[in-house]
């Protein structure tokens, strides 16, 4: 195997790791729940998306790639819905106060 797919993988995964780092910093530093959720979901979507993207050239085609993409899509689904649920809960708590 030539080095070219590795260069692509390293760049994509590094970018993904950067988004996870940024998301973690946001989670720790942002002032309230809604902005923290924003940081967290960005990290999940883009960070994991880029890591999956970077790993695609290294896995067997088509089933390995299909599995990785499914993992990403399922996490998108659960991540966005959990974020909505938490945000909803926060809204209702604020309405109560």
């Amino acid at each position, binding site marked *: 195997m030539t080095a070219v797919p590795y260069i692509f993988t390293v760049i994509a995964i590094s970018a993904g790791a950067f988004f996870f780092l940024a998301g973690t910093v946001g989670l720790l530093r942002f002032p309230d729940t809604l902005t923290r959720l924003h940081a967290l979901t960005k990290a999940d979507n883009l960070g994991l998306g880029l890591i999956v993207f970077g790993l695609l050239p290294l896995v067997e085609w088509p089933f390995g790639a299909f599995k990785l993409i499914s993992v990403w899509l399922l996490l998108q*689904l*659960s991540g966005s*819905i959990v974020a*909505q*649920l938490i945000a909803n809960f926060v809204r209702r708590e604020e309405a109560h106060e």
Partner: protein
Amino acid sequence: MTITFIFDAILVVLLLTVAIWIIVARAAFSAVLAFVAYGLLLAVVWVELSAIDIALTEAAIGSGVTGMILLGAASRLRETEAAVVSAGRPLILAAALLCAVIAAALAALVLSPPSTVFTLAPETMAHLHESGLGNPVAGVLFVYRAFDTLLEKVVVVLALVGVWSLAPDRFWGGIPGLQVSQQPNSVLTLLSQLLPPLGIVFGIYMFWTGANNPGGAFQGGTVLAAMWILVMIAGLQNPPSTNWRWLRVLVVLGPAIFLAIGLAGFGLAGAFLAYPPGYAKPLIIVAEAALTLSIGVALGLLAAGPPERVAQQ
């Protein structure tokens, strides 16, 4: 120092930190959340140790279902939590000392292994093909140590009977008091409509592939249970009445079929839980299929909790 070593070291430090956090957390709710995170980290540790089957079980049961049951317990205890009197410093110190001694003894054993490690792994692999299974973990569970596995499945039924026994007499056989979403048409409704078709296929796949790859009845059954719990929490389907006959049949079906196959072993293969030559794999698949279903139903009911309402006649 390799990358893997650094990764493992960070993982261990993280695991210990979360473990300490669970112990010192004041609110039960925070401790439970940390426990869920602890289970997921532990699953990564099992992956690092190439024990994929255990990693799946840890993530599904240790972190998922147990976490859900503990969350229910924590929210029930929340009102009484402030009134709990702390157990006095001497008692806490004594408990800490005892735990530390046990941990130190275990660590000493792990850190100084015997010079010749005794292992049954080569024997296991040498005879595995006779069972027709490809996954040595499934081989150990259903061939070499089938009796342990049978007892383990019966324990799940007993645990459910234990939870049901917490119901007051007038609610015995009633409907579990699972807290459900009060909002129809929320995002939770969407999730509980989208996910179960995928989850049911995946749960069945996990049981099916367990014969040759990591997976099996417990992991598959947990995924099925999770889908059922999701549908119940979203309010799309009410928890069933616990005196419904078919529900009880489903709970005991798996252990009963496994036990029947075990007893048939006396006549067909000369010993309890022995399989006749050539029929091992089909019999194991039948037992596992029934067990997957029973575990799914039993775990769903465990998470739904004790009956709290009278069933409508």
